[in-house]
């Protein structure tokens, strides 16, 4: 069993077969640093719990259809949780979860106009006024 401690002090005991799916943790296990509890400073208990749930489900189930349906349900979370899960998957290097969360965020971009994308993702328009003018002139369709 491997023990993980979240940023807000929650501890999680996971089987090795689950822990190795977090590449970051697996490397630590290989380096012999997994004897005591491993701190996961960037991830809260709430998110770490979800990430562990994801891995457990994918370890237990092999049926693609069932996993697909479960993933679709699993990822129905608010934007903040989605980002937190994405960051956790990135930091802990959990490939399946990273793909799922990135795809979900990518789906938020699909079909959106430039202004809509800026709004959803809180993007600062860092084009110079001249650049912005050029872009709007060349691509009127994007701003309608």
């Amino acid at each position, binding site marked *: 069993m491997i023990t993980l401690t979240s940023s807000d002090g929650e501890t999680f005991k996971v089987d090795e077969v689950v822990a190795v799916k977090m590449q970051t943790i697996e490397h630590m296990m290989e380096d012999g640093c997994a004897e005591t509890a491993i701190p996961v400073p*960037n991830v809260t208990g709430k998110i770490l719990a979800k990430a562990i749930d994801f891995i457990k489900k994918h370890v237990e189930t092999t049926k693609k259809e069932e996993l697909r349906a479960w993933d679709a349900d699993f990822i129905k979370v*608010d*934007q*903040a949780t989605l*980002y937190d899960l*994405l*960051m956790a998957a*990135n*930091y802990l*290097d959990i490939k399946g979860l*990273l*793909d799922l969360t*990135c*795809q979900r*965020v*990518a789906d938020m*971009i*699909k*079909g*959106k*106009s*430039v202004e809509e*994308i*800026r709004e*959803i*993702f*809180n*993007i*600062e*328009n*860092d*084009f110079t006024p001249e*650049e912005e003018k050029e*872009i709007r002139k*060349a*691509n*009127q*369709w*994007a701003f309608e």
Partner: protein
Amino acid sequence: MTGNMRLKEDEEEEEEEGASPIIYGDVLELILSHVPLVDLAHACLVSDTWKHAVSSSLFHLNKLRPWLVVHTQTTRSPYLTSTHAYDPRSRLWLHVDKPPLRHVSPLRSSHSSLLYMLSPSKFSFSRDPLHLTWHHAQPPLVWRTDPIVAAVGSRIVIAGGSCDFEDDPLAVEVYDVESRSWDSCQSMPANLKDSAASTWLSIAVNGRRMFVMEKNTGETYSFDPSTKIWNGPYELHPDPAVFFSAISFAGDRMILVGLIGDAENVKNVKLWKVDEETMECEKVGEMPQLLLEKLKNENSNLASIGVTMQGDFIYIHNTSGSGALLCCEFKIHDEIEWSIIENVIIISDKTRMGRLVFTCSDVGIHDVHKALSSDNRRFLYSP
């Protein structure tokens, strides 16, 4: 791993609960690798940071891949056309919604992204990836119903396909795109007399030459439109068991796809790379049996296949209109990866209405921008 998010700092206003964090760096590029090309065209206009992230993501994580464009056309006037495209980078189908072409006649293509229409009054062609620009020219002197047409460099070669008894069945004419003029030249070799039409001949084209091969025998000739000279014959028959083959260029490679066995019982489909200078064939791949079954569909008859190639991609379809659409990609060390294209239902439905014409293009963000800037053009995701 570098931190890739920070909360937006509001100096004057109070911090919003659940303000969405700003995504940048590795994570942004990873997300963008999941975004289809037609949406990346919007994403790169959002900010300078995103513009660079899109470029970087395309270069490092998920590069552009050539689209397979399927044009379906009804067989009678006004020859209504609808266009669907498959983007293998994102594995999805798009319906390309665009204004109808004016003065339409049957659409044809003989290689890669070339699309053309030939009528008694006009010869029209388009070579750009999304066929936004059409070049209209006088028709060739000889009226042809089923010629081979090839865009070689800045010239278009039209050969064979004549149906009038008075015309030379082997007549060749070359159109110079820059000077907008036709020139007649040396006829096709006499050996091709009985098969001088696109029904019987497969062509492979690169920037300098056109290679013409009889699909059933593998007898091949090459034509250089700048010297107007035919060379050959060459025998492209790498395996005596091949009863049908097609050639085309995938990037710099001339590839021959051969059906082995006979039409009622095709045993294999193999791929050879042909050396342009020596015309020798080297086997580079073989279709997995499972995919061959899908290509045949329920019908065990597979008399001929159509191939469309661009860059590292080869698309193969059953010319009867049924069966699966297959794709193979040259990967590192020229290893071939085979796959089947999903959700071809859209296409199968259309087949009943008319003809299918396949083209293959390298579509980039610039092309998508141009298309969207053109009148009423849209890309819609097919469900």
